[in-house]
Protein backbone atom coordinates (compact mmCIF):
# COMPACT_ATOMS: atom_id res chain seq x y z
CA UNK A 1 0.00 0.00 0.00
CA UNK A 2 1.33 3.43 -0.94
CA UNK A 3 2.02 5.58 2.11
CA UNK A 4 -0.17 8.65 2.57
CA UNK A 5 0.33 11.37 5.15
CA UNK A 6 -2.84 10.42 6.98
CA UNK A 7 -4.15 6.87 7.28
CA UNK A 8 -7.59 6.46 8.81
CA UNK A 9 -8.92 3.13 10.08
CA UNK A 10 -12.68 2.90 10.51
CA UNK A 11 -15.15 0.04 10.78
CA UNK A 12 -17.81 -1.76 12.74
CA UNK A 13 -16.90 -1.82 16.41
CA UNK A 14 -14.83 -4.86 17.28
CA UNK A 15 -13.49 -5.16 13.73
CA UNK A 16 -9.93 -4.66 15.01
CA UNK A 17 -9.27 -1.00 14.14
CA UNK A 18 -7.20 -0.17 17.20
CA UNK A 19 -4.91 -3.16 16.85
CA UNK A 20 -4.32 -2.47 13.17
CA UNK A 21 -3.79 1.26 13.76
CA UNK A 22 -1.08 0.51 16.35
CA UNK A 23 0.60 -2.02 14.07
CA UNK A 24 0.47 0.35 11.12
CA UNK A 25 1.96 3.20 13.16
CA UNK A 26 4.83 0.87 14.15
CA UNK A 27 5.27 -0.10 10.51
CA UNK A 28 5.51 3.57 9.43
CA UNK A 29 7.92 4.36 12.24
CA UNK A 30 10.20 1.48 11.25
CA UNK A 31 10.09 2.77 7.66
CA UNK A 32 11.47 6.06 8.97
CA UNK A 33 8.40 8.31 9.03
CA UNK A 34 7.75 10.76 11.90
CA UNK A 35 4.45 9.29 13.05
CA UNK A 36 1.74 10.02 15.57
CA UNK A 37 -1.30 7.91 16.37
CA UNK A 38 -4.59 9.59 17.31
CA UNK A 39 -7.49 7.88 19.07
CA UNK A 40 -10.77 9.40 17.84
CA UNK A 41 -12.87 6.73 19.51
CA UNK A 42 -15.30 8.51 21.80
CA UNK A 43 -17.72 5.59 22.02
CA UNK A 44 -15.92 2.62 23.53
CA UNK A 45 -14.94 2.69 27.18
CA UNK A 46 -12.60 -0.33 27.19
CA UNK A 47 -9.74 -1.64 25.00
CA UNK A 48 -8.31 1.53 23.59
CA UNK A 49 -5.06 2.83 22.12
CA UNK A 50 -4.09 4.12 25.54
CA UNK A 51 -3.68 0.51 26.73
CA UNK A 52 -0.53 0.43 24.54
CA UNK A 53 0.79 3.80 25.74
CA UNK A 54 4.06 2.46 27.12
CA UNK A 55 4.92 0.39 24.05
CA UNK A 56 4.16 3.32 21.73
CA UNK A 57 6.31 5.71 23.71
CA UNK A 58 9.19 3.18 23.80
CA UNK A 59 8.98 3.09 20.01
CA UNK A 60 8.99 6.87 19.71
CA UNK A 61 5.41 7.12 18.49
CA UNK A 62 3.40 10.07 19.71
CA UNK A 63 0.01 9.12 21.15
CA UNK A 64 -2.82 11.62 20.92
CA UNK A 65 -5.72 10.63 23.09
CA UNK A 66 -8.44 12.26 25.14
CA UNK A 67 -7.19 13.06 28.64
CA UNK A 68 -10.26 11.20 29.87
CA UNK A 69 -9.59 7.93 28.00
CA UNK A 70 -9.31 4.94 30.35
CA UNK A 71 -10.15 7.15 33.29
CA UNK A 72 -13.46 6.61 34.97
CA UNK A 73 -14.86 9.73 33.30
CA UNK A 74 -17.20 8.75 30.50
CA UNK A 75 -16.76 12.07 28.69
CA UNK A 76 -16.63 12.14 24.89
CA UNK A 77 -14.11 14.92 24.29
CA UNK A 78 -11.46 15.38 21.60
CA UNK A 79 -7.97 16.71 22.39
CA UNK A 80 -6.86 19.81 20.45
CA UNK A 81 -3.68 17.98 19.35
CA UNK A 82 -5.71 16.00 16.79
CA UNK A 83 -6.38 19.19 14.84
CA UNK A 84 -2.66 19.94 15.05
CA UNK A 85 -1.82 16.58 13.49
CA UNK A 86 -4.45 16.92 10.76
CA UNK A 87 -3.06 20.32 9.70
CA UNK A 88 0.70 19.74 10.13
CA UNK A 89 2.12 18.45 6.80
CA UNK A 90 5.48 17.57 8.41
CA UNK A 91 4.05 14.65 10.43
CA UNK A 92 2.44 11.37 9.45
CA UNK A 93 -0.72 10.42 11.24
CA UNK A 94 -2.58 7.19 11.91
CA UNK A 95 -6.15 7.86 13.00
CA UNK A 96 -8.19 5.29 14.90
CA UNK A 97 -11.84 6.14 14.23
CA UNK A 98 -14.62 5.05 16.59
CA UNK A 99 -16.93 2.18 15.76
CA UNK A 100 -20.03 2.47 13.57
CA UNK A 101 -21.71 5.68 12.47
CA UNK A 102 -21.91 7.04 16.01
CA UNK A 103 -18.14 6.68 16.42
CA UNK A 104 -17.40 8.14 12.99
CA UNK A 105 -19.42 11.26 13.78
CA UNK A 106 -16.41 12.76 15.59
CA UNK A 107 -14.41 12.56 12.35
CA UNK A 108 -16.72 15.10 10.72
CA UNK A 109 -14.94 17.86 12.68
CA UNK A 110 -11.75 17.24 10.63
CA UNK A 111 -13.25 16.00 7.36
CA UNK A 112 -12.99 19.23 5.37
CA UNK A 113 -9.26 19.70 6.12
CA UNK A 114 -8.43 16.07 5.40
CA UNK A 115 -10.31 16.01 2.09
CA UNK A 116 -8.84 19.40 1.06
CA UNK A 117 -5.24 18.26 1.61
CA UNK A 118 -6.11 15.05 -0.27
CA UNK A 119 -3.18 12.99 1.02
CA UNK A 120 -5.01 10.30 2.94
CA UNK A 121 -6.26 6.72 2.92
CA UNK A 122 -9.65 6.16 4.50
CA UNK A 123 -9.78 2.42 5.14
CA UNK A 124 -12.71 0.26 6.11
CA UNK A 125 -11.67 -2.57 8.43
CA UNK A 126 -13.86 -5.63 7.90
CA UNK A 127 -14.15 -8.94 9.75
CA UNK A 128 -16.42 -11.65 8.38
CA UNK A 129 -16.49 -13.42 11.76
CA UNK A 130 -18.36 -10.48 13.34
CA UNK A 131 -22.09 -11.16 13.55
CA UNK A 132 -23.31 -7.88 12.03
CA UNK A 133 -20.89 -7.96 9.08
CA UNK A 134 -21.24 -11.61 8.03
CA UNK A 135 -22.35 -10.79 4.50
CA UNK A 136 -20.90 -8.33 1.97
CA UNK A 137 -24.28 -6.53 1.86
CA UNK A 138 -24.40 -5.95 5.64
CA UNK A 139 -20.78 -4.78 5.54
CA UNK A 140 -21.55 -2.23 2.83
CA UNK A 141 -24.44 -0.96 4.95
CA UNK A 142 -21.99 -0.22 7.80
CA UNK A 143 -19.69 1.48 5.28
CA UNK A 144 -22.43 3.77 3.96
CA UNK A 145 -23.55 4.76 7.46
CA UNK A 146 -19.98 5.59 8.47
CA UNK A 147 -19.29 7.55 5.30
CA UNK A 148 -22.39 9.63 5.90
CA UNK A 149 -21.49 10.27 9.55
CA UNK A 150 -17.77 10.92 9.05
CA UNK A 151 -17.96 12.94 5.85
CA UNK A 152 -14.91 11.30 4.22
CA UNK A 153 -15.30 8.83 1.34
CA UNK A 154 -13.54 5.50 1.81
CA UNK A 155 -10.54 4.74 -0.42
CA UNK A 156 -9.91 1.10 0.42
CA UNK A 157 -10.67 -2.03 2.43
CA UNK A 158 -8.64 -3.85 5.09
CA UNK A 159 -9.67 -7.47 5.47
CA UNK A 160 -9.14 -8.31 9.12
CA UNK A 161 -11.23 -11.47 9.35
CA UNK A 162 -10.28 -13.19 12.62
CA UNK A 163 -11.58 -15.17 15.58
CA UNK A 164 -9.20 -13.63 18.09
CA UNK A 165 -6.42 -15.92 19.24
CA UNK A 166 -8.34 -18.92 17.84
CA UNK A 167 -7.84 -17.72 14.25
CA UNK A 168 -6.48 -20.37 11.87
CA UNK A 169 -4.94 -19.81 8.44
CA UNK A 170 -8.03 -21.29 6.76
CA UNK A 171 -10.27 -18.69 8.46
CA UNK A 172 -8.28 -15.97 6.70
CA UNK A 173 -8.15 -17.85 3.38
CA UNK A 174 -11.89 -18.51 3.38
CA UNK A 175 -12.56 -14.80 3.93
CA UNK A 176 -10.83 -13.68 0.74
CA UNK A 177 -13.91 -14.21 -1.41
CA UNK A 178 -15.97 -12.16 1.07
CA UNK A 179 -13.47 -9.27 0.93
CA UNK A 180 -13.52 -9.44 -2.88
CA UNK A 181 -17.31 -9.30 -2.83
CA UNK A 182 -17.24 -6.17 -0.62
CA UNK A 183 -14.69 -4.76 -3.06
CA UNK A 184 -16.93 -5.54 -6.05
CA UNK A 185 -19.97 -3.93 -4.40
CA UNK A 186 -18.12 -0.73 -3.50
CA UNK A 187 -15.46 -0.43 -6.21
CA UNK A 188 -12.84 -0.08 -3.46
CA UNK A 189 -9.59 -2.10 -3.58
CA UNK A 190 -8.61 -4.53 -0.79
CA UNK A 191 -5.45 -2.76 0.35
CA UNK A 192 -4.40 -5.18 3.09
CA UNK A 193 -5.23 -8.60 4.47
CA UNK A 194 -4.28 -8.86 8.14
CA UNK A 195 -3.17 -11.93 10.05
CA UNK A 196 -1.53 -12.42 13.42
CA UNK A 197 2.15 -13.21 13.10
CA UNK A 198 1.86 -16.84 14.25
CA UNK A 199 -0.15 -17.84 11.16
CA UNK A 200 1.70 -15.64 8.65
CA UNK A 201 4.08 -18.45 7.51
CA UNK A 202 1.07 -20.48 6.33
CA UNK A 203 -0.31 -17.53 4.36
CA UNK A 204 2.75 -15.78 2.95
CA UNK A 205 2.77 -17.39 -0.48
CA UNK A 206 -1.03 -17.35 -0.78
CA UNK A 207 -1.90 -13.71 -0.09
CA UNK A 208 -0.17 -10.84 -1.85
CA UNK A 209 -1.08 -7.92 0.40
CA UNK A 210 -0.58 -9.66 3.75
CA UNK A 211 -0.02 -7.38 6.76
CA UNK A 212 1.31 -9.23 9.83
CA UNK A 213 -0.15 -8.16 13.18
CA UNK A 214 1.32 -8.23 16.65
CA UNK A 215 -1.64 -8.64 18.98
CA UNK A 216 -1.54 -5.87 21.58
CA UNK A 217 -1.78 -7.32 25.04
CA UNK A 218 -3.72 -5.95 27.96
CA UNK A 219 -2.35 -6.20 31.44
CA UNK A 220 -4.58 -9.06 32.48
CA UNK A 221 -4.26 -11.01 29.23
CA UNK A 222 -1.91 -13.94 29.55
CA UNK A 223 0.39 -15.71 27.13
CA UNK A 224 -1.54 -18.94 27.41
CA UNK A 225 -4.75 -18.50 29.26
CA UNK A 226 -6.20 -21.60 30.81
CA UNK A 227 -9.69 -21.62 29.40
CA UNK A 228 -12.85 -22.39 31.30
CA UNK A 229 -13.68 -26.04 31.46
CA UNK A 230 -16.67 -27.45 29.66
CA UNK A 231 -19.69 -27.24 31.85
CA UNK A 232 -23.07 -28.66 31.21
CA UNK A 233 -25.33 -25.65 31.07
Amino acid at each position, binding site marked *: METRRLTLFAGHYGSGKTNIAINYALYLKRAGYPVAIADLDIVNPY*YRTKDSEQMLSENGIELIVSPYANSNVDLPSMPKEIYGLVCDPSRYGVLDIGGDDRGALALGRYAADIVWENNYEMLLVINRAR*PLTRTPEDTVEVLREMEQAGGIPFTGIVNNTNL*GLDTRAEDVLSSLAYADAVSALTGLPVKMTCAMRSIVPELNDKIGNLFPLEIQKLYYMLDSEVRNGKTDI
Partner: protein
Amino acid sequence: MQEKVLMKGNEAIAEAAILAGCRHYFGYPITPQTEVAAYMAKKMPKIGGTFLQAESEIAAINMVYGAASTGKRAMTSSSSPGIALKCEGISYLAGSDLPALIVNVQRGGPGLGGIQPSQSDYYLATRGPGHGDFHVIVLAPSSVQEMADLTGKAFELAEKYRMPAMLLADGTMGQMMEPVVLPDPVETVPEKTWAVTGTGCAREHRIINSLDLSPVNLERLNLERFKRYEKVEAEEAMWESFLMEDAEICIVSCGITARVSRNAIVAAREKGIRVGMIRPITLWPFPKKALLNAADQVHDFICVELNMGQMAEDVELAIRCRKPVARCNRVGGMIPSPDEVLEAIYKAAGKEAGK
Protein backbone atom coordinates in the same frame (compact mmCIF):
# COMPACT_ATOMS: atom_id res chain seq x y z
CA MET B 1 -24.64 -26.25 15.35
CA GLN B 2 -23.90 -22.73 14.19
CA GLU B 3 -20.60 -21.42 12.82
CA LYS B 4 -18.09 -19.88 15.22
CA VAL B 5 -18.20 -16.06 15.31
CA LEU B 6 -16.25 -13.37 17.15
CA MET B 7 -18.41 -11.44 19.59
CA LYS B 8 -18.38 -9.04 22.46
CA GLY B 9 -20.03 -10.44 25.56
CA ASN B 10 -22.79 -7.83 25.33
CA GLU B 11 -23.53 -8.76 21.70
CA ALA B 12 -23.57 -12.45 22.62
CA ILE B 13 -26.30 -11.78 25.19
CA ALA B 14 -28.37 -9.86 22.66
CA GLU B 15 -28.05 -12.44 19.88
CA ALA B 16 -28.61 -15.36 22.28
CA ALA B 17 -31.77 -13.68 23.59
CA ILE B 18 -33.08 -13.31 20.03
CA LEU B 19 -32.23 -16.96 19.33
CA ALA B 20 -34.09 -17.90 22.54
CA GLY B 21 -37.22 -16.31 21.06
CA CYS B 22 -37.08 -12.95 22.83
CA ARG B 23 -38.70 -10.31 20.63
CA HIS B 24 -39.23 -7.59 23.24
CA TYR B 25 -36.32 -5.54 24.50
CA PHE B 26 -36.73 -2.40 26.57
CA GLY B 27 -33.65 -0.51 27.68
CA TYR B 28 -31.78 2.64 28.41
CA PRO B 29 -28.09 3.15 27.55
CA ILE B 30 -25.40 2.94 30.20
CA THR B 31 -21.72 1.95 29.99
CA PRO B 32 -20.54 -0.84 29.97
CA GLN B 33 -23.66 -2.64 28.65
CA THR B 34 -24.69 -0.27 25.84
CA GLU B 35 -23.85 -2.77 23.08
CA VAL B 36 -26.79 -4.93 24.19
CA ALA B 37 -29.16 -2.09 23.34
CA ALA B 38 -27.20 -1.09 20.22
CA TYR B 39 -27.35 -4.66 18.89
CA MET B 40 -31.05 -4.96 19.63
CA ALA B 41 -31.70 -1.61 17.93
CA LYS B 42 -30.06 -2.90 14.75
CA LYS B 43 -31.51 -6.40 14.80
CA MET B 44 -35.05 -6.27 16.25
CA PRO B 45 -36.65 -4.17 13.47
CA LYS B 46 -35.33 -6.66 10.89
CA ILE B 47 -37.02 -9.65 12.56
CA GLY B 48 -40.33 -8.10 13.53
CA GLY B 49 -39.33 -7.61 17.15
CA THR B 50 -39.60 -4.62 19.45
CA PHE B 51 -36.63 -2.50 20.44
CA LEU B 52 -37.64 0.39 22.59
CA GLN B 53 -35.35 2.93 24.23
CA ALA B 54 -37.41 3.98 27.20
CA GLU B 55 -37.30 7.38 28.87
CA SER B 56 -35.69 5.84 31.95
CA GLU B 57 -34.63 2.56 33.51
CA ILE B 58 -37.81 2.51 35.59
CA ALA B 59 -39.95 2.88 32.48
CA ALA B 60 -38.03 0.08 30.78
CA ILE B 61 -38.55 -2.47 33.57
CA ASN B 62 -42.26 -1.67 33.70
CA MET B 63 -42.49 -2.23 29.95
CA VAL B 64 -40.89 -5.63 30.60
CA TYR B 65 -43.67 -6.24 33.15
CA GLY B 66 -46.27 -5.51 30.52
CA ALA B 67 -44.70 -7.67 27.82
CA ALA B 68 -44.03 -10.53 30.26
CA SER B 69 -47.69 -10.46 31.35
CA THR B 70 -48.65 -11.56 27.86
CA GLY B 71 -46.42 -14.62 28.16
CA LYS B 72 -43.77 -13.36 25.74
CA ARG B 73 -40.06 -13.55 26.38
CA ALA B 74 -39.08 -10.01 27.41
CA MET B 75 -35.88 -8.49 28.72
CA THR B 76 -34.05 -5.37 29.77
CA SER B 77 -30.37 -4.69 30.40
CA SER B 78 -28.42 -2.10 32.31
CA SER B 79 -25.40 -1.60 34.54
CA SER B 80 -25.25 -1.20 38.30
CA PRO B 81 -26.78 2.29 38.91
CA GLY B 82 -29.47 1.53 36.32
CA ILE B 83 -30.26 -1.81 37.95
CA ALA B 84 -30.74 -0.06 41.29
CA LEU B 85 -33.42 2.03 39.57
CA LYS B 86 -35.10 -1.07 38.19
CA CYS B 87 -35.43 -2.75 41.58
CA GLU B 88 -38.96 -1.50 42.17
CA GLY B 89 -40.09 -3.08 38.92
CA ILE B 90 -38.22 -6.33 39.62
CA SER B 91 -40.08 -6.63 42.91
CA TYR B 92 -43.38 -6.15 41.06
CA LEU B 93 -42.37 -8.86 38.57
CA ALA B 94 -41.57 -11.22 41.45
CA GLY B 95 -44.81 -10.27 43.24
CA SER B 96 -46.78 -11.06 40.09
CA ASP B 97 -44.87 -14.30 39.45
CA LEU B 98 -43.70 -13.16 36.03
CA PRO B 99 -40.70 -14.58 34.20
CA ALA B 100 -38.34 -12.05 32.60
CA LEU B 101 -34.65 -11.51 31.98
CA ILE B 102 -32.72 -8.66 33.56
CA VAL B 103 -29.09 -8.26 32.47
CA ASN B 104 -26.68 -6.47 34.79
CA VAL B 105 -23.20 -5.76 33.38
CA GLN B 106 -21.71 -4.43 36.59
CA ARG B 107 -19.50 -1.37 37.01
CA GLY B 108 -17.83 0.05 40.09
CA GLY B 109 -19.92 1.77 42.75
CA PRO B 110 -21.50 2.85 45.00
CA GLY B 111 -23.28 5.87 43.58
CA LEU B 112 -22.34 6.78 40.04
CA GLY B 113 -19.03 5.03 40.72
CA GLY B 114 -17.00 4.33 37.60
CA ILE B 115 -17.37 2.58 34.26
CA GLN B 116 -14.77 -0.16 34.77
CA PRO B 117 -15.74 -3.71 35.79
CA SER B 118 -16.92 -4.79 39.21
CA GLN B 119 -18.88 -7.53 40.98
CA SER B 120 -20.20 -5.27 43.69
CA ASP B 121 -23.90 -5.93 43.02
CA TYR B 122 -23.61 -9.45 44.43
CA TYR B 123 -25.66 -8.58 47.52
CA LEU B 124 -28.20 -6.64 45.45
CA ALA B 125 -28.75 -9.56 43.07
CA THR B 126 -28.71 -12.49 45.47
CA ARG B 127 -30.76 -10.99 48.32
CA GLY B 128 -33.78 -10.15 46.16
CA PRO B 129 -33.27 -6.92 44.23
CA GLY B 130 -36.17 -4.84 45.55
CA HIS B 131 -38.60 -4.60 48.44
CA GLY B 132 -40.38 -7.60 49.91
CA ASP B 133 -39.53 -11.28 50.38
CA PHE B 134 -38.36 -12.72 47.07
CA HIS B 135 -35.51 -14.08 45.04
CA VAL B 136 -34.45 -13.90 41.43
CA ILE B 137 -32.39 -16.58 39.73
CA VAL B 138 -28.86 -15.18 39.33
CA LEU B 139 -26.47 -16.51 36.68
CA ALA B 140 -22.80 -15.49 36.53
CA PRO B 141 -21.09 -16.11 33.16
CA SER B 142 -17.31 -16.41 32.98
CA SER B 143 -16.77 -16.34 29.20
CA VAL B 144 -18.44 -14.91 26.11
CA GLN B 145 -19.62 -18.46 25.33
CA GLU B 146 -21.37 -18.60 28.71
CA MET B 147 -22.87 -15.15 28.13
CA ALA B 148 -24.65 -16.76 25.17
CA ASP B 149 -25.47 -20.11 26.79
CA LEU B 150 -26.74 -18.70 30.08
CA THR B 151 -29.05 -16.18 28.37
CA GLY B 152 -31.25 -18.95 26.95
CA LYS B 153 -30.95 -20.89 30.22
CA ALA B 154 -32.13 -17.81 32.14
CA PHE B 155 -35.33 -17.58 30.07
CA GLU B 156 -36.01 -21.30 30.55
CA LEU B 157 -35.50 -21.21 34.33
CA ALA B 158 -37.50 -18.00 34.68
CA GLU B 159 -40.47 -19.59 32.90
CA LYS B 160 -40.14 -22.94 34.66
CA TYR B 161 -40.41 -21.29 38.09
CA ARG B 162 -42.35 -18.15 37.09
CA MET B 163 -39.79 -15.76 38.50
CA PRO B 164 -37.40 -13.12 37.12
CA ALA B 165 -33.84 -14.16 36.27
CA MET B 166 -30.80 -11.93 36.31
CA LEU B 167 -27.67 -12.42 34.23
CA LEU B 168 -24.99 -10.92 36.48
CA ALA B 169 -21.88 -10.19 34.45
CA ASP B 170 -18.98 -7.86 35.14
CA GLY B 171 -17.93 -5.09 32.74
CA THR B 172 -15.06 -7.19 31.39
CA MET B 173 -17.44 -9.98 30.40
CA GLY B 174 -19.58 -7.44 28.55
CA GLN B 175 -16.73 -5.79 26.69
CA MET B 176 -14.29 -8.61 25.93
CA MET B 177 -14.34 -10.37 22.58
CA GLU B 178 -14.05 -14.13 22.16
CA PRO B 179 -15.03 -16.72 19.61
CA VAL B 180 -18.45 -18.13 20.37
CA VAL B 181 -20.72 -20.80 18.93
CA LEU B 182 -24.23 -19.46 19.23
CA PRO B 183 -27.05 -21.74 20.40
CA ASP B 184 -29.61 -23.07 17.94
CA PRO B 185 -32.76 -20.96 17.63
CA VAL B 186 -35.79 -21.79 19.77
CA GLU B 187 -38.64 -22.41 17.31
CA THR B 188 -41.58 -21.98 19.67
CA VAL B 189 -41.66 -20.36 23.07
CA PRO B 190 -43.90 -22.46 25.39
CA GLU B 191 -47.53 -21.28 25.76
CA LYS B 192 -48.42 -19.91 29.16
CA THR B 193 -51.56 -20.93 31.06
CA TRP B 194 -51.53 -17.64 32.96
CA ALA B 195 -50.81 -15.07 30.25
CA VAL B 196 -53.19 -12.17 29.64
CA THR B 197 -53.85 -12.39 25.93
CA GLY B 198 -57.53 -11.49 25.65
CA THR B 199 -60.34 -13.88 26.59
CA GLY B 200 -61.94 -13.86 23.13
CA CYS B 201 -65.17 -14.10 25.20
CA ALA B 202 -64.31 -17.80 25.51
CA ARG B 203 -62.69 -18.07 28.92
CA GLU B 204 -62.45 -16.46 32.34
CA HIS B 205 -60.33 -13.35 32.81
CA ARG B 206 -56.79 -13.88 33.93
CA ILE B 207 -55.29 -11.28 36.22
CA ILE B 208 -51.64 -10.35 36.65
CA ASN B 209 -51.23 -8.38 39.84
CA SER B 210 -48.92 -8.03 42.83
CA LEU B 211 -51.50 -6.39 45.11
CA ASP B 212 -53.36 -8.47 47.67
CA LEU B 213 -54.97 -6.64 50.57
CA SER B 214 -55.97 -9.78 52.42
CA PRO B 215 -53.20 -10.69 54.88
CA VAL B 216 -54.35 -14.31 54.84
CA ASN B 217 -54.08 -14.53 51.07
CA LEU B 218 -50.83 -12.58 50.88
CA GLU B 219 -49.18 -14.83 53.45
CA ARG B 220 -50.36 -17.89 51.53
CA LEU B 221 -48.91 -16.47 48.30
CA ASN B 222 -45.58 -15.77 49.97
CA LEU B 223 -45.43 -19.26 51.45
CA GLU B 224 -46.29 -20.82 48.11
CA ARG B 225 -43.57 -18.76 46.43
CA PHE B 226 -40.97 -19.87 48.94
CA LYS B 227 -41.93 -23.52 48.34
CA ARG B 228 -40.97 -22.88 44.73
CA TYR B 229 -37.71 -21.25 45.83
CA GLU B 230 -36.90 -24.37 47.87
CA LYS B 231 -37.28 -26.44 44.73
CA VAL B 232 -35.01 -24.06 42.80
CA GLU B 233 -32.37 -24.30 45.54
CA ALA B 234 -32.60 -28.09 45.57
CA GLU B 235 -32.50 -28.62 41.83
CA GLU B 236 -30.97 -25.75 39.89
CA ALA B 237 -27.62 -24.86 41.49
CA MET B 238 -24.81 -24.89 38.89
CA TRP B 239 -21.08 -24.74 39.42
CA GLU B 240 -17.84 -25.86 37.87
CA SER B 241 -15.16 -27.76 39.79
CA PHE B 242 -11.59 -27.17 38.64
CA LEU B 243 -8.77 -29.42 39.90
CA MET B 244 -10.67 -30.13 43.12
CA GLU B 245 -10.01 -33.92 43.26
CA ASP B 246 -6.94 -33.62 45.50
CA ALA B 247 -7.23 -29.96 46.49
CA GLU B 248 -6.31 -28.78 50.00
CA ILE B 249 -7.16 -25.15 49.27
CA CYS B 250 -10.36 -24.12 47.48
CA ILE B 251 -10.73 -20.86 45.58
CA VAL B 252 -14.29 -19.63 45.12
CA SER B 253 -14.73 -17.09 42.35
CA CYS B 254 -16.99 -16.24 39.41
CA GLY B 255 -16.86 -14.10 36.26
CA ILE B 256 -13.55 -12.52 35.22
CA THR B 257 -11.87 -13.23 38.58
CA ALA B 258 -12.47 -16.98 38.12
CA ARG B 259 -10.39 -16.77 34.95
CA VAL B 260 -7.59 -14.89 36.69
CA SER B 261 -7.75 -17.44 39.54
CA ARG B 262 -7.52 -20.34 37.11
CA ASN B 263 -4.11 -19.12 35.97
CA ALA B 264 -2.95 -18.62 39.56
CA ILE B 265 -4.07 -22.19 40.39
CA VAL B 266 -2.04 -23.64 37.53
CA ALA B 267 1.01 -21.61 38.63
CA ALA B 268 0.57 -22.74 42.27
CA ARG B 269 0.30 -26.39 41.25
CA GLU B 270 3.63 -26.07 39.42
CA LYS B 271 5.08 -25.24 42.84
CA GLY B 272 3.41 -28.31 44.35
CA ILE B 273 0.53 -26.55 46.12
CA ARG B 274 -2.69 -28.53 45.81
CA VAL B 275 -5.28 -25.88 45.08
CA GLY B 276 -8.52 -26.05 43.11
CA MET B 277 -11.58 -23.94 42.46
CA ILE B 278 -15.33 -24.14 42.80
CA ARG B 279 -16.79 -21.59 40.38
CA PRO B 280 -20.44 -20.82 41.14
CA ILE B 281 -22.40 -20.41 37.88
CA THR B 282 -25.67 -19.76 39.70
CA LEU B 283 -25.20 -17.25 42.53
CA TRP B 284 -28.80 -17.79 43.59
CA PRO B 285 -29.34 -20.66 44.10
CA PHE B 286 -25.82 -20.74 45.57
CA PRO B 287 -24.01 -24.10 45.19
CA LYS B 288 -24.07 -24.71 48.94
CA LYS B 289 -23.78 -28.49 48.83
CA ALA B 290 -20.67 -28.48 46.65
CA LEU B 291 -18.99 -26.05 49.03
CA LEU B 292 -20.07 -27.90 52.16
CA ASN B 293 -18.63 -31.12 50.72
CA ALA B 294 -15.39 -29.31 49.92
CA ALA B 295 -15.19 -28.09 53.53
CA ASP B 296 -14.46 -31.68 54.62
CA GLN B 297 -11.59 -31.86 52.14
CA VAL B 298 -9.72 -28.53 52.17
CA HIS B 299 -8.09 -26.61 55.03
CA ASP B 300 -8.71 -23.12 53.61
CA PHE B 301 -11.02 -21.28 51.24
CA ILE B 302 -10.07 -18.12 49.33
CA CYS B 303 -12.80 -15.97 47.82
CA VAL B 304 -11.56 -13.85 44.88
CA GLU B 305 -13.98 -11.02 44.05
CA LEU B 306 -14.29 -7.54 42.55
CA ASN B 307 -16.00 -6.30 45.72
CA MET B 308 -15.15 -6.07 49.41
CA GLY B 309 -16.07 -9.68 50.13
CA GLN B 310 -19.79 -10.14 49.43
CA MET B 311 -19.79 -13.71 48.09
CA ALA B 312 -17.32 -14.66 50.85
CA GLU B 313 -20.20 -14.39 53.33
CA ASP B 314 -22.25 -16.89 51.33
CA VAL B 315 -19.25 -19.23 51.32
CA GLU B 316 -19.00 -18.96 55.12
CA LEU B 317 -22.72 -19.66 55.44
CA ALA B 318 -22.55 -22.59 53.02
CA ILE B 319 -19.65 -24.25 54.86
CA ARG B 320 -21.09 -23.21 58.25
CA CYS B 321 -17.80 -21.48 59.10
CA ARG B 322 -16.02 -24.82 59.38
CA LYS B 323 -12.90 -23.53 57.66
CA PRO B 324 -11.36 -20.05 57.31
CA VAL B 325 -12.43 -18.05 54.23
CA ALA B 326 -9.70 -15.61 53.15
CA ARG B 327 -10.57 -12.59 51.00
CA CYS B 328 -8.73 -11.54 47.87
CA ASN B 329 -10.43 -8.40 46.59
CA ARG B 330 -9.95 -5.53 44.18
CA VAL B 331 -12.54 -2.80 43.76
CA GLY B 332 -13.26 0.43 41.90
CA GLY B 333 -12.71 -1.12 38.46
CA MET B 334 -9.39 -2.80 39.28
CA ILE B 335 -8.82 -6.50 38.50
CA PRO B 336 -6.43 -8.67 40.52
CA SER B 337 -3.43 -10.06 38.64
CA PRO B 338 -2.74 -13.82 38.79
CA ASP B 339 0.25 -12.94 41.01
CA GLU B 340 -2.01 -11.31 43.59
CA VAL B 341 -4.17 -14.43 43.71
CA LEU B 342 -1.01 -16.56 43.87
CA GLU B 343 0.09 -14.50 46.87
CA ALA B 344 -3.19 -15.33 48.64
CA ILE B 345 -2.65 -19.02 47.84
CA TYR B 346 0.91 -18.92 49.27
CA LYS B 347 -0.45 -17.31 52.40
CA ALA B 348 -3.06 -20.04 52.91
CA ALA B 349 -0.52 -22.79 52.14
CA GLY B 350 2.17 -21.23 54.34
CA LYS B 351 -0.19 -20.81 57.28
CA GLU B 352 -1.04 -24.51 57.12
CA ALA B 353 2.66 -25.43 56.97
CA GLY B 354 3.16 -23.43 60.16
CA LYS B 355 5.37 -20.81 58.51
